[in-house]
């Protein structure tokens, strides 16, 4: 799920204008193939300026806590030149035909919209200037704007945007490619710390989230699925469920076999959720477990060790001659690393409200990715995609879990069967035990150092899940990660084993694991070379240069990484003496177009308990931080999220099912364990990129490297096991 390339020159952004209700200016945008006329139907009313000067900007992307409902409209408001306090934000319906990409994934919102949506805002400003110039009979070049007003500079006359809106609607939209944009030094909104637009509603308990949806006549549902992945319902005591007070219906859903579709299970529909849950408990379901019931984490680890000892199934990338270079190396270092399955556990459990009437489906859902949900619902229910309407609610967390819309199709199916609007809410146990997990993985490294401690060969035999050339979802590897192209002899081999457990992207997919194994092993190499871990990394990065081709998603700028690595070293006081049992660890990682280096100070007690005392982050995400408040939140949140994962989270598979079930055995970080996280943004002359994910991957290795510095024990498997660190 790394960044898709921004749309190239084959399409053009177009603008449409119109009169808003009440006589204001309405601006819509869309994309057409280069050379084609703008389609007649495309009106998204993206910006509306009312006669009273109120500005409405549509938030088109799903909001999962990454802050796009605030930061993206900030881009528009800046170039439109209005006061942020005059702006109202309206959540869009899911409709990619009208709004373009509507996905919370890949940290791509800023990257993709930084240029385009500022141009839309700037075009609106030009039209308001044109309307004022016509009113006054003066050249537009004599007019300027201050927030919400156009001013004729020679005479000092002014008109508010509201007064100009109706006339502006009649002006021809300017050419978006050449519309003038502000000089960043004149930004007033971009770069100003701006609280989230939903904050007041959130802190007063207003209904914003999927679980809060309430439709008149609505019923409440639970849905029980087989604990072992891929199983079916053999028997269920539907009568017992129906005997529970408040239960209206109980029925078996046949479902299919695709793990990301409608699965078999038993639905209970009741007057309230608690009754639906009690009904579910009365079902006494017998399951017909599928072939995955023979799978286990232990079995995977055993099989991975066997595969690692055999020739790999295939080679992903081979530069130079690794075997030859290892033979000639002064020192060879070998290590095996592994990491577990992980659940997403967004705090709002999966839920969806659906209403099926007259062959049409209306959905209210917290989703990161509504369009595939629409397709899934349409296909499963046998209705046309255009007959599925999706309201995107605020999401109580996403982390990649809600890129899948399994709960959406369940709600739609149950609602149709129930003949009423139905709100389906999963229990936390449903959520932890029916996730699309971050796949576990196994890496077998071998590297060679020359006499001077330089890296001459790097080999990783990655054992992962899949069959043949096909990886399980999110279980593949981008072989061009650093140190690819920085070492002459480099080879990534891969072997796969079959998996019946559903997997999918988790915040910084792939990278959240590869950062750990690569930067931990590099730390081992630094120690083997007898060098300081930070200096060893700088040497490995070498002179500032681009590895790979400019503009390619996997190109890597060693200069940008050096910049953040040097900065984090300086800010953390790298190299200073630490008390006994305390150590500093460093790591860097590039993902989602962002360059991040982190230092962790951690203490390890004689009993093996790890305490993170402080984290320093240096980040390069380009020339501009759009919303410094949200940006800091994303970085601190990713770091703390990752501390929780590294210290205690794992999903263990036994008999084809997840052992863990709730927060007592899948622990999230708590406040008392949250250390200060000091964040420094290094501004560089590159386009701004996203922040939801790239701060996460360097944390696990920086923490594990700090543990090594503190107590001399190397962590090669996550989560950290205190028993293995015990010295007392």
């Amino acid at each position, binding site marked *: 799920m790394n960044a898709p390339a921004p749309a190239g020159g084959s399409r053009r952004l177009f603008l449409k204008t119109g009169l808003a209700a009440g006589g204001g200016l309405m601006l819509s945008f869309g994309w057409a193939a280069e050379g084609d006329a703008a389609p007649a139907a495309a009106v998204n009313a993206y910006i509306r300026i009312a006669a009273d000067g109120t500005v409405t900007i549509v938030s088109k992307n799903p909001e*999962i*806590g*990454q*802050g796009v409902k605030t930061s993206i409209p900030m881009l528009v408001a800046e170039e439109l030149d209005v006061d942020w306090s005059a702006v109202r934000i309206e959540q869009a319906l899911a409709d990619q035909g009208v709004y373009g990409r509507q996905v919370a994934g890949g940290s791509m919102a800023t990257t993709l919209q930084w240029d385009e949506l500022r141009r839309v805002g700037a075009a609106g400003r030009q039209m308001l200037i044109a309307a004022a110039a016509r009113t006054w009979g003066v050249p537009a070049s004599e007019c300027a704007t201050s927030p919400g007003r156009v001013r004729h500079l020679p005479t000092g006359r002014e008109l508010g945007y509201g007064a100009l809106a109706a006339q502006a609607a009649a002006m021809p939209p300017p050419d978006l490619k050449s519309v003038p944009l502000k000089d960043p030094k004149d930004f007033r909104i971009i770069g100003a*710390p*701006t*609280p*989230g637009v*939903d*904050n*007041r509603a*959130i*802190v*007063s*308990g*207003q*209904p914003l*989230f999927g*679980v*809060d949806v*309430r439709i008149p006549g609505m019923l*409440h549902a639970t849905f029980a699925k087989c604990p072992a992945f891929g199983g079916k319902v053999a028997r269920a005591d539907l009568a017992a469920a129906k005997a529970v*007070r*408040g239960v209206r219906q109980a029925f078996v859903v046949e479902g299919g076999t695709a793990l990301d579709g409608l699965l078999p299970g038993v639905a209970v529909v009741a*007057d*309230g*959720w*608690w009754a639906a849950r009690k009904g579910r408990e009365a079902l006494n379901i017998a399951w017909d477990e599928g072939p995955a019931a023979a799978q286990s984490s232990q079995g995977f680890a055993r099989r991975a060790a066997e595969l690692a000892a055999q020739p790999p199934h295939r080679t992903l990338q081979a530069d130079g001659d690794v075997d030859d270079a290892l033979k000639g190396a002064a020192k060879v270092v070998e290590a095996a690393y592994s990491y577990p399955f992980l659940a997403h*556990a*967004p*705090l*709002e*459990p999966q839920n969806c409200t659906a209403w099926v009437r007259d062959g049409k489906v209306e959905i209210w859902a917290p989703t990161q990715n509504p369009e595939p949900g629409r397709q899934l619902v349409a296909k499963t229910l046998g209705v046309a995609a255009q007959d599925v309407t999706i309201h995107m609610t*605020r*999401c*109580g*967390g*996403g*982390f990649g879990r809600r890129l899948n819309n399994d709960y959406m199709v369940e709600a739609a199916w149950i609602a149709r069967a129930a003949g009423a609007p139905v709100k389906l809410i999963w*229990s*936390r146990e449903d959520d932890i035990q029916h996730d699309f997990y971050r796949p576990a993985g196994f890496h077998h490294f071998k590297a060679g150092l020359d006499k001077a401690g330089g890296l001459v060969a790097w080999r990783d035999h990655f054992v992962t899940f899949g069959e043949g050339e096909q990886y399980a979802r999110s279980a593949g590897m981008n072989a061009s990660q650093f140190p690819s192209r920085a070492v002459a002899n480099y080879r990534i081999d891969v072997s796969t084993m079959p998996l019946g457990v559903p997997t999918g992207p988790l915040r910084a997919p792939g990278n959240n694991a590869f950062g750990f194994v690569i930067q931990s092993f590099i730390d081992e190499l630094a120690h083997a070379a007898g060098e300081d871990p930070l200096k060893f990394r700088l040497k490995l990065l070498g002179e500032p240069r681009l590895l790979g081709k400019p503009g390619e998603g996997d190109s890597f700028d060693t200069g940008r990484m050096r910049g953040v690595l040097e900065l984090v070293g300086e800010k953390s006081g790298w190299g200073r003496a630490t008390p006994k049992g305390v150590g500093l660890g460093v790591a860097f990682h590039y993902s989602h177009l962002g360059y991040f280096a982190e230092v962790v100070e951690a203490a390890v007690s004689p009993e093996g308990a790890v305490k993170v005392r402080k984290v320093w982050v240096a980040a390069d995400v380009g020339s501009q931080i759009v919303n410094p*408040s*949200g940006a800091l*939140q994303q970085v*601190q*949140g990713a*770091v*703390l*999220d990752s501390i*929780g994962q590294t210290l205690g989270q794992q999903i263990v598979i036994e008999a084809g099912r997840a052992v863990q079930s*709730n*927060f*007592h055995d899948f622990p*999230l*970080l*708590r*406040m*008392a364990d*949250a250390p*200060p996280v000091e964040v420094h943004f290094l501004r560089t002359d590159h386009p701004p990129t996203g922040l939801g994910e790239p701060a996460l991957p360097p944390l696990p290795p920086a923490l594990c490297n700090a543990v090594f510095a503190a107590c001399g024990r190397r962590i090669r498997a996550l989560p950290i096991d205190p028993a293995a660190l015990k010295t007392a």
Partner: protein
Amino acid sequence: MPYRIKVNGRERTVDVDGDTPLLWVLRDSLDLPGAKFGCGMAQCGACTVHVDGAPTRSCVTPIESVGKAAVVTIEAMSADPIGARLQDAWVNLDVPQCGYCQAGQIMSAAALLARNPNPSDDDIDAAMNGNLCRCATYLRIRQAIKHAARGGKAAS
């Protein structure tokens, strides 16, 4: 059977089974969706309300155990001086990310400040450790509680 409970200063009657958790009475019967469902076993604190002033996990509080106690939810916090200060601090310091846990966080924080108007970091950690934030906004939560404790004034 019918239960009479006092919620946000009003007497309310609900007809549910006695084992129904207060959380689901508030959300499904009384249309007070501010308290959130997160875990169902008092692990996350998203469902926190006040019962006679004490922060209480409503997801494990059967309606039959509430009796005559005064139940207060996030929906009533803007009318409470401490609650309003906390809400303002939360908004202005931009605490929420996804926001789902924040009603529960504020309810725990309000109970803390009611008994300890000037809490230390350790006091805050102890009072707030039962409230999970999956987005990990803990650093800002701590800051906002201190800000509200100072009456909304900046640190000197």
